[in-house]
């Protein structure tokens, strides 16, 4: 009888283990945990780890500009506006600047739009300068550290270089007054003037409701191999080609326009989002700037992003292991793109899709209204929290001055 009871107990135990492992297998089947170089930090809660003080600037720096053109709320640079709104009501906000770890200046530098909707950066340096002069004269905290514990959101094409043309942006460089501050920007390229050390790269703004509205049932089979919609030649600004996107987009077109595996074209259909959900790979080549909202769209719709931009730095690169999620192709390897993509082993592709299916991954790319745990706002705060405590050289000794208030082009010194 003893043997029988032992056998029974063994059977029960093994069945229990079996069910547990089956469940784990099922879980593993669906998604995988995402851990970047900073660890498993996508789901960290920044509340309690840092305090942010929001400067009260006159409304000509933020509200009045927005009132002049409300398109600023929907274009891809809208992160600066939504970050301000998020911080105003966030639990990390403190009204006592003495206990704050970080200081935020709400100035909407990317809201001066042309009739077409593209932001003009010509007045932005003056606007930023004027805002900094204001906070330097009204509060002591700027001069205390010369901006080392301040952060600014600059989502424009080349960040704080404030120009849409790359050479002009490189010529100007980052605004000298911001050289000690932390910049939260969408532009990221290694060894580039406009990316300074310690910047936090964020995804461009993509409207979350619009994308949710176009979701299709997940059992719709993915039948498109490679998908891309966008310009290959910018005929208006670069009619000969070779300049726009460093010739990479033109190369994609010339090599693969007749390839049946590549669904690429310049026509933007109404079913753009639905088509992305039926594709396995989505190309994210550089344009005039290396970043684009296609990365966000690809992540939301589960399409593996194929990033063709040399030396690009992707959003939240220390929290998200982009190497394991996307495919990186050097610009010189574009003619071999089909060979590269078809030689990826299927289990690697399935693993990338599982990582993309992770809801915390999708959440980290979005700026939802109202904010939700794990979204891009929280990732920015997490990034800021990871930079704490401030190094000792952040705070200046009495009388020490590092910033040169008259540096930069003469035009920037005019008051705004």
């Amino acid at each position, binding site marked *: 009888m003893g043997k029988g009871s032992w056998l029974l107990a063994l059977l029960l135990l093994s069945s229990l283990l079996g069910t547990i492992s089956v469940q784990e297998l099922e879980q593993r*089947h669906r998604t995988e945990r995402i851990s970047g*170089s900073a660890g498993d930090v996508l789901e960290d809660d920044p509340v309690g780890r840092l305090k942010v003080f929001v400067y009260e600037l006159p409304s000509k720096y933020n509200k009045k500009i927005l009132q002049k053109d409300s398109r600023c709320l929907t274009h891809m640079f809208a992160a600066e506006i939504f970050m301000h709104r998020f911080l105003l009501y966030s639990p990390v906000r403190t009204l006592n600047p003495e206990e704050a770890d970080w200081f935020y200046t709400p100035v909407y530098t990317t809201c001066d739009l042309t009739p077409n909707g593209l932001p003009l950066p010509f007045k932005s340096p003056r606007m930023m300068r004027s805002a900094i002069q204001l906070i330097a004269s009204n509060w002591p905290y700027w001069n205390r550290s010369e901006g080392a514990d301040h952060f600014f959101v600059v989502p424009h094409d080349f960040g704080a270089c404030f120009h849409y043309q*790359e*050479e002009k942006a*490189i010529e100007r460089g980052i605004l000298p007054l911001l050289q000690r501050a932390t910049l939260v920007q969408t532009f*990221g*390229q*290694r*060894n*580039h*003037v406009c*990316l300074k*050390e310690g910047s936090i*790269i964020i995804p461009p703004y993509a409207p979350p409701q619009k994308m949710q509205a176009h979701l299709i*049932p*997940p*059992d719709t*089979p*993915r*039948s498109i191999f490679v998908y891309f919609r966008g310009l290959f030649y910018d005929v208006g*600004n*670069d*009619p*000969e*080609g*070779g*300049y726009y996107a460093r*010739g990479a987009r*033109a*190369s994609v077109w*010339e*090599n*693969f326009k*007749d*390839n*049946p*595996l590549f669904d690429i074209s310049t026509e933007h259909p109404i079913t753009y989002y639905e088509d992305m959900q039926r594709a*396995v790979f989505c190309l994210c080549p550089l344009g005039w700037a290396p970043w684009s909202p296609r990365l966000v769209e690809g992540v939301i719709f589960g399409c593996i992003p194929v*990033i063709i931009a*040399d*030396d690009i*730095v992707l959003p939240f*690169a*220390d929290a998200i292991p982009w*190497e394991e999620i996307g495919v*990186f192709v*050097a610009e*010189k390897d*574009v*003619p071999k793109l*089909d*060979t590269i*993509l*078809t*030689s*990826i082993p*299927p289990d690697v*592709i*399935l693993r990338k*899709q599982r990582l993309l299916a992770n809801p915390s991954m999708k959440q980290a790319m979005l700026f939802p209204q109202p904010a939700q745990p794990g979204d891009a706002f929280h990732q920015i705060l997490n990034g800021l929290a990871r930079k704490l405590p401030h190094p000792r050289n952040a705070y200046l000794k009495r009388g020490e001055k590092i910033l040169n208030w008259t540096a930069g082009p003469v035009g920037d010194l005019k008051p705004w």
Partner: protein
Amino acid sequence: MKLSALQPIRRANSFRSPSSAPLDGGAAPSDGPLFRSPTAIFWLLLHAICCLVSLALGFRFSRLLFLLLFSPSSSPSPPSPPVLLLHRRPDLPLSPHPPTPFATPNATGSRVVVGRHGILVRPWPHPNPTEVMRAQRILDCVQREQRLQYGVKNPRPLLVVTPTYPRTFQALHLTGLLHSLQLIPYPLTWLVVDAAGVGAASNETAALLARSRVPVLHIRFSGRMPLRWSDRHRTEARMRLQALRVIKERRLEGVVVFADDSNVHSMELFDEIQKVKWMGAVSVGIVAHSGNPGMVAPQQLSKEEEENSPVPVQGPACNSSGQLAGWHTFNSLPYVNKSATFIGDGAMVLPQKLEWAGFVLNSKLLWEEEEGKPDWVRNLDEVGVNGEEIESPLDLLKDASFVEPLGNCGKKVLLWWLRVEARYDSKFPAGWVIDPPLEIIVPAKRTPWPHAPPELPSGKVATSQDPLEKRSSKTGRSSRSRRSSRNKRKREPQIDTHI
């Protein structure tokens, strides 16, 4: 290979080569505006000529020049030093893993240069077939994983019931249905009820079914298929009932689908019917075949007929809360005088009010003594006896309101009903194989094929040649026979003596 940027000016004049850059316009220093140096004039003239050439061609051929001069990517070229030196920056802590496999760890300045780059085009831009196959395999893998994760969790096996009988178009219809069934990803059993008589006809269906890769249950039906459509519908119903009785006897498990051999099914149908609990109904599109196009001229259609949708649909009708409220049936009144009566008489074949193909049922409904079996179902043994005529599966139920509407409450048409049949007296080669090859070959005068050397009549060839040549000529003969046999079929009893 990247062309280095010369001057960071957009739309740089493409005809300035790197070597001659210093020679441009700057060679006219202090001379007055009227007197220009010869190099400037030369460049101006060249520019003008090229403009005229472009005008004549219709496009700027500078891009073509670039492509021809700088595009061959197979030839390795030394990296040209970047003219635009960017500030040296230490490796940023944000990105520890560089994506490009460059070996040099310390980059002096950036490798990425602003400016005009060549557009790299490989010399053979067409896809490699091996790679295309690999891509298809990847897609297949991805879709299988999708089905595993989001598709039907515990698929039930299918029991497909098909009534058939040997006739000219049987091979056409059964092969189509067979291929559809072979694509279904769920386990299935195909119950084929065959109304062949005795003799050679009874092996026709068996021969077709022998090619099947799905398990087949070949059920012989005693009785012949009648020639009138109305009788045929009734016989088919009896054949299906016999299949249901087989399911009941053997207690086969799964979802019963009525797939007629001439119907067309979409794959989504088989995914959708997995959702049925006891009995379900789907929408069927009716493709009423109009044999003689001249018969029903569009102008003669009455207003009533025009109001009907172009493809009538039979199926469940739902009310606003998604529950079964009634049935969309086929209105046969407009076609009453124009429909077909005999099989293959060339007129429109009409379906019944509700076709069997639009219903699916759980096989447990048919089993006897099954717990959980609902009480609104009649016992199968009592159905069809004493001359009772079964028109649709609704006659198997005591209460038709429990039928579940499938396919988004009947809004999705998942299969199409049509009947296409040849004349009942039409002849066709047995098993669609011409064996032995036809004996007499006569070249037809007006073949569309290119003129081949004339062949002697077969009798003379067989006696005078070696076995080797005989074999080759025999194959030649059979191919010719197939060709000429097509001409000959229409005039079977006659022999064409034209030479």
